[in-house]
């Protein structure tokens, strides 16, 4: 049970209805729909930051799963573990991002990416200059801007979904159980 009412299609405000046209839009939309003017701006923002963009999907899912694991957001960790597996990350990689075991990252720069996420999402205050320099050796500046905003947006979602106790969908729970991630 969520801490706030999740609006179904029959109680969705007029401007939110289009998000229900293809069926249940999920608990995040259903919670935000209670304040339709927030949904109007939050959804395009979140889909731009979290959706398909110049950063490849593998990098984005590393950011989202790792950040969510650091913030201990069960809802986002579960949902994005499934997306990460679909994006081609291995079970061992997803497990490592979830903090369930160590791993050697094969792809160049991914160890620095994970260290960057840990510093930004897990740390407080300034981020280490050596680490920033190592990241700049692997990613273009516009990519650093994008992935750093992605960390921040994910943290925002993590706290929102955790505090309001948004429920993990059954299909997600079943899929994770089937691969031993739950």
């Amino acid at each position, binding site marked *: 049970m969520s801490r706030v*009412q999740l609006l179904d299609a029959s*109680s*969705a*405000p*007029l*401007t939110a209805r289009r998000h229900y046209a293809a069926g249940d839009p999920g608990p995040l939309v259903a919670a935000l729909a209670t*304040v339709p*003017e927030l949904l109007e701006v939050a959804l395009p923002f979140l889909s731009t930051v979290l959706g398909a963009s110049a950063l490849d999907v593998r990098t984005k899912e590393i950011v989202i799963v790792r950040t969510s694991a650091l913030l201990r957001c069960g809802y986002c960790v579960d949902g994005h573990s499934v997306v990460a597996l679909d994006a081609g990350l291995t079970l061992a990689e997803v497990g490592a991002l979830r903090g369930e075991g160590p791993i050697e990252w094969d792809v160049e720069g991914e160890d620095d990416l994970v260290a960057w996420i840990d510093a930004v999402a897990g740390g407080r205050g300034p981020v280490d200059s050596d680490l920033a320099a190592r990241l700049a050796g692997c990613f273009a500046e516009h990519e650093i801007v994008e992935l750093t905003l992605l960390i921040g947006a994910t943290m925002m979602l993590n706290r929102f979904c955790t505090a309001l106790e948004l429920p993990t969908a059954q299909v997600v729970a079943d899929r994770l159980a089937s691969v031993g991630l739950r």
Partner: protein
Amino acid sequence: MSAVDQAVADGVLPGRVWLYSNYHCNLTCSYCLTESGPGVQRRELSPARMVEVAEQAADLGFTDLGLTGGEPFLLPTMPETLARLGAVLPTVALTNGTLFTGRRLAAAEVLAGARVALQISLDSAEPDDNDRARGPENFAKVVAAVPALVERGITVRIATTQSEDEPADMARLCALHRDLGVPDSDHVVRPIIARGRAEAAGLGVEVRPEDLPAELTVTADGAFWSPFGPTVRGGRLDTDLLLTRTTDPLQVPAQTLLGLIEGRPPGADSTLNIR
């Protein structure tokens, strides 16, 4: 001129803005769309807030105000508040008319000559039929209040909420309101809408948004499409006709309402005569 001003001036956006002053009531009518009654959550707008909304409405080019509830006259300062609202824009205030005796009747005298009409609910010229839905003694109280208000120079209108199954004898009802001093032009008739208590009881007509007047409606919980929007079911406010939670500045929900109206397919107007 803003898009909202222009739309009001062109008649694209209805000119009236509604205020829900409160949700509690001294009655518990069987079909009440807001499930109002004595013990319910009050959801009040303060008098200052109501005047502020009125002023912003006037600045945006809206032409009229409506005030409803709950029973607005349970709020002790309602007559003065209405006089202030009427000074900003012509106002119609909906009331059950049962509270205009003694002190409250005297207090209403500030409305004589003001740009304020009191629209009192009366469903039938047959006391038993009227009182079945609106409660014991309702008919007697209303037929006493109407002439008392009219005598004091207050404009009174009559609103009849009709059951589809048992339509009132309109000829008798109209003869009665004329006798009480209310002309035909000030008599409004509407069907029961299947929202709130009516829906729970299986009463009234089902409505789509386009069946309801697209009148901007401000409550303590946000702004809605039509005064038939911010209804209550099982103690919970309905959100299907919610526009925005933001009501200040009024431009925010007005703009949202306008966007929805402009996106509506042509010829979508309703014929249900809901007002």
